[in-house]
Each structure stands twice: as C-alpha cells, then as structure tokens.
C-alpha cells in the first residue's frame, strides 16, 4: 500500500496548480456540468451554478439530486421535486407533501423518485405514474432502453414500466440493496448492498453475479465511456470490475487503482478515455490511467475538508469538478 502521494517527490506528477478552488460552503451532495456550467448541489439547499447561487427549495434541505445536460433535478425534505435550469430558473415538478424524497434519477426529460414505499415517474409530458412497493425503495435507475425503471430494495430489485398497468418484475437476491446502476448498454444491473458487497444480474437471463471483498459499503459507481468497466468506491483503492464479455466480471479479478491508506468515497470515469478520477475520504483526489496505472495528483489530502462526496467530468473531458462533505470544492482544467 502506498502512502499519500507526495507532490514533492519527483516521480509524482501533480495537476494541483491547474485546480481552481470553489467555495461551496456546505456539504456537496452532487456535482455536474449543466449547459457546460459547473454545478454543485448542496445538502443545505443551495445550488451553485457557475458564479451564482440559487435555493429552489427555499429553507429546506436537498436530499437527492441528479442532472442531465440541461437541468438539475433535486428532491428535498420539503417533499418537492424541482428542476432548475442553468439559468437559475426553477420549476416544481411534483410535491409529496410532508415527505422526504429518498431517491431520484433522471433520463432524457423523465424523472423518477421514491418516498416511503411509493415510487413515481414523471415523463416529459408531465404525466406522473406511481406504484407502491412492498419494501422501501433505496435506489433508482432508468434502464437505457425504453421507459422502464430499476428499483433497488430489500430482497432484490424490481423492474417497473410506469406506463404499463402491471406489477413490477422482481429479480430476487436476499439482503438489503441500496444503490442501483445499469450498464450503458443495458446488459447488466448492479446494486450495492448493506453487507459491503455488490450484486449483479445479467439482464438477458437474470443470472446472478456476486462481487465481494469490500471493507465498507459502495456508495458511488461510474461506468467507463465504452461501458466495459465499472469503477466503485468502498475500498482503499478504486475497485474496477470488467464487464467486456457476456459473463461480466464472473470469475475475473477486478483492477485496483489508486491504492492509498484512505478509503475511496467517489469515482468518476473520464468521458472519452480509460482514465478514472478517484476521490478519497481524506479529500485527496487522484487521476489514474487505466493502461499503466499511472497516477496524477489533483488534490492533496486535507482531512478537515471531509470526504470527497461528488465528482463530475464535463462532456469534453477537459474539466473535472469535485466537492467534499465539508464544503470544499474545486475544478481541474486539464492543461
């Protein structure tokens, strides 16, 4: 295990001089580029868009957020689902009075969210459909094809077509499933679990996949641009599972990138190259190249800033945005 990268050591290349700090001043929940503007969503309720700050949930906190190219979707402890545009204008899409929004995901102009045992989906026309699950949904993700949602919950995942009047199809696996992700080609569904493991299903035949060995829970996933790799948080390195062939990672060892003595809390694959940005609990950020595991330092560790809680690349792969639980943030512009 290597120590904290030392920027003074000659063999270690640093990009820190290309990082501009941003004052988030609050727990960064989510980072994204929307209309090319860097966006930080803060748990206390504010959204930082470039130079401006807006608070669409007013005095309420934001619990969950997701972005697409054009908009920022947030779910708050005021029960509101709000879309905010890069201009700062916002629109309330739904209001679940008196409830907390527990999970949220977007795809195209559709958004889905969960509160209590109810999952709702709103299509681009504004039509909202809801379904009540047997156990509380924890994670949500749209499948890439069609208007269909994967719902992670206790005992497995459910696949729900909001526009079809039929019960959700279940893929069962014992235990509590937390977050859900689907490979970009839709071939694999992967969940993180309460007991520090990942579970996967091959969509075609629902074959199970177990991915274990984590010392803590995985709470961040990132697929490579070609969809062949899945980077995950939860260990003292980014654990990257191979999904090239039809069996996914079964029988194969994952790659471990950026091994340090602090746990990985956030991962973000570059949108065009096999390079992954890795954020740690001590707020260090590294960039690792896949082919030779070469590491570049983006941010030095600073425990007082809290763990890296969100990262995002811009579409061109030129800028990397990151933020911490303690309210520090920065933007790297590649030279």
């Amino acid at each position: 295990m290597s120590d904290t990268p030392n920027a003074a050591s000659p063999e270690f290349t640093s990009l820190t001089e290309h990082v501009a700090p941003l004052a988030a001043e609050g727990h960064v929940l989510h980072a994204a580029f929307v209309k090319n503007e860097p966006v930080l969503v803060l748990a206390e309720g504010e959204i930082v868009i470039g130079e401006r700050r807006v608070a669409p949930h007013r005095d309420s906190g934001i619990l969950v957020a997701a972005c697409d190219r054009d908009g920022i979707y947030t779910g708050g402890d005021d029960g509101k689902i709000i879309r905010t545009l890069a201009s700062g204008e916002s629109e309330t899409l739904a209001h679940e009075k008196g409830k907390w929004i527990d999970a949220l995901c977007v795809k195209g102009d559709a958004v889905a969210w969960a509160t209590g045992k109810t999952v709702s989906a709103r299509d681009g026309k504004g039509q909202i459909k809801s379904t009540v699950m047997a156990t509380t949904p924890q994670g949500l993700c749209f499948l890439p094809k069609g208007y269909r949602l994967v719902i992670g919950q206790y005992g497995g995942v459910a696949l729900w077509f909001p526009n079809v009047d039929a019960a959700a199809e279940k893929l069962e696996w014992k235990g509590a499933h937390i977050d859900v992700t689907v490979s970009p080609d839709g071939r694999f569904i992967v969940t993180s679990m309460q007991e520090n493991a990942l579970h996967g299903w091959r969509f075609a035949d629902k074959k199970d996949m177990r991915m274990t060995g984590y010392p803590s829970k995985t709470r961040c996933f990132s697929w490579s641009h070609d969809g062949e790799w899945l980077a995950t948080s939860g260990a003292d390195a980014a654990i990257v599972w191979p999904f090239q062939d039809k069996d996914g990672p079964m029988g194969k060892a994952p790659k471990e990138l950026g091994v340090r003595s602090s746990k990985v809390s956030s991962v973000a694959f570059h949108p065009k190259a096999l390079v992954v940005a890795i954020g740690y609990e001590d707020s260090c950020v590294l960039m690792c190249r896949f082919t030779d595991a070469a590491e570049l330092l983006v941010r030095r560790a600073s425990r007082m800033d809290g763990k890296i809680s969100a990262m995002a690349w811009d579409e061109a792969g030129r800028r990397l945005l990151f933020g911490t639980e303690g309210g520090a943030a920065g933007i790297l512009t590649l030279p």
Partner: protein
Amino acid sequence: MSDKIPVTVLTGYLGAGKTTLLNRILTEEHGKKYAVIVNEFGEVGIDNDLVVGADEEVFEMNNGCICCTVRGDLIRIIENLMKRRGKFDAIIVETTGLADPAPVAQTFFVDEDLSARSRLDAVVTVVDAKWLADRLKDAPEAKNQIAFADVILINKTDLVSEEALAQVEKQIRALNPYAKLHRTVKSNIELDKVLGRNAFDLDRILDIAPDFLDESGAHHHHDDEMQSVSFTAGEVDPDKFMPWINEFTQVEGPKILRSKGILAFKDEPRRFVFQGVHMILDGDLQRPWRDGEKRQSKIVFIGRALDRDAIKKGFEACLV
C-alpha cells in the same frame, strides 16, 4: 466526548405518555435542537422540518440468523440528517408500541457509516403505571421494551396507589434490575434524566449502574419467561473468557436481549468492559483499575429462557 451525534431511542406502549414526553422535549427551552424520527407521521403535533416519519422496516442481516436485524429506514434517514448536521444537536428515535428495540440498537453497532457519525445514547421506555401489569401479560413487546431500557419512566403515577406502584416497580425490576427508574406524572421529568445519558458508552457503564459491582455473588431476578442473570467473581483469564463469551453469544444470541460486563483480566492494569445486543458484542479496555479498587469481574445477561447453570459453569471456567 466525541462529535458523534447522540441518538436517544424512545419506546413505550401507545398511550403510556411517550408522545407527551416527546412534545415536551421539542417545546421546552433547553437550548438544544432535536431531529426526531417518529413512527407515525402526524402524531407529534409540532411543525418542525426536522421531524421525519419512519416505516420501521427491519432488515435481516445475511447470516441467516433471526436475531441479527437492523432498521434499514434508520440508516437512510440518519444518513440524510447527517448532511445537515449543523441544524440539530441530537436525534430522537420514537418507536411504536409494537416495536422491538433490539434492531434499533443493533443498527448503531452494525452499520459502520452510522456508527462513524452517531452513537446510541440510551433506550428510554415510558410505561403506564396503571396498565403495565396487563401489557406484560398480553404483549411480549412490552417486556422487551422494559428489559432493554436504560431509563424507564413509570408514568401516570397519580392514577395508582402507592402499593400498586411498588408492585409495578417490582415487576420492572424482575425484568431489568439495572435501568434507572423514574416516577412521573404527565411525563414530567428533568430532561437531563432522559437525554445525554451515555448509557452505551463503555466508559460509563459503571456510572449508569453505580451498584453494578457492589453486589456480591450471583444474582438472579426473574419473571416466568424473561430474566436477568449476573455473576461476580475475581480475576478472569482473557484467553479463556474471550472465546467463551463469543461462542456463548453466538449460540444463545437470539435469547439474549442485552449483556454487559466489566472484567478484571489477569495481569491487565485496565478494566475490560463489554456490552452486547443479541449476538453483537462491543468491548474494549477502558480506564485502569484505581488504587484500592477491588479487582473483580461481573457479567450480566438479560434475556429469555437463559440457562443460568450453563452460564455459571462457562464463566467459572474462565476464572484464574
């Protein structure tokens, strides 16, 4: 002590006075802000954006054991609350009258993310002085809530006679000899007797039950089904005790509601303190034994159908 957010678990049967206590905590001037996780949304008549409803969803852990359960909803809600931790000083979890407190407590030992940020402060149970005897007959949950408690409020004492009250206390003591008992009317009590108790802090197990080490010899309270079993002895061999306690709690875990112990390990200047919920154990070496302090060991189990003789035999085999 630490910057972990303290979490108080408030249990009790419907109508015992739990909601009254909660409302007092939320409205009285004490300079502290509480985030409250309630079981039935709307029961607390207070408009507070830090009051959130929970669905009491119990997750089994993957070892297939029926006693190894956690509250999935708590993990999620507290994780979300922690993102706004500047807004409150402590958390209160209210459970329904039907809830088993064990999964709530276990959640704080089992979930690493949660235990890194929050700590269980105490389990507080409110009972109705008039109706407790009936509840103990017809509701196993009521027994669990008493056996599990660190602090018990015997409420509505104005509605029963002194003799009846003494009888209620006796019944409670049979189930749980170590909890702090308070007699109250309309849940009226100084809040520092309920909040900030540090009952799960290994370092403070003695402060909570000052007579914990006082009694000599074996001690045994019981009702027909649930009992507490305790043994006191001299020095213990850790190489024998640790495997024994691990094995014992693994096998008997479903029957054990709570366990506590202070051990004088041979050649060890510090006291070893442990506590457990079902089969989940938490233990550590704490402060040194003081000069003149008697180096003795004591273990306590509260549970159902515990085999007293087997425990005695097992514990005695660990003695130096």
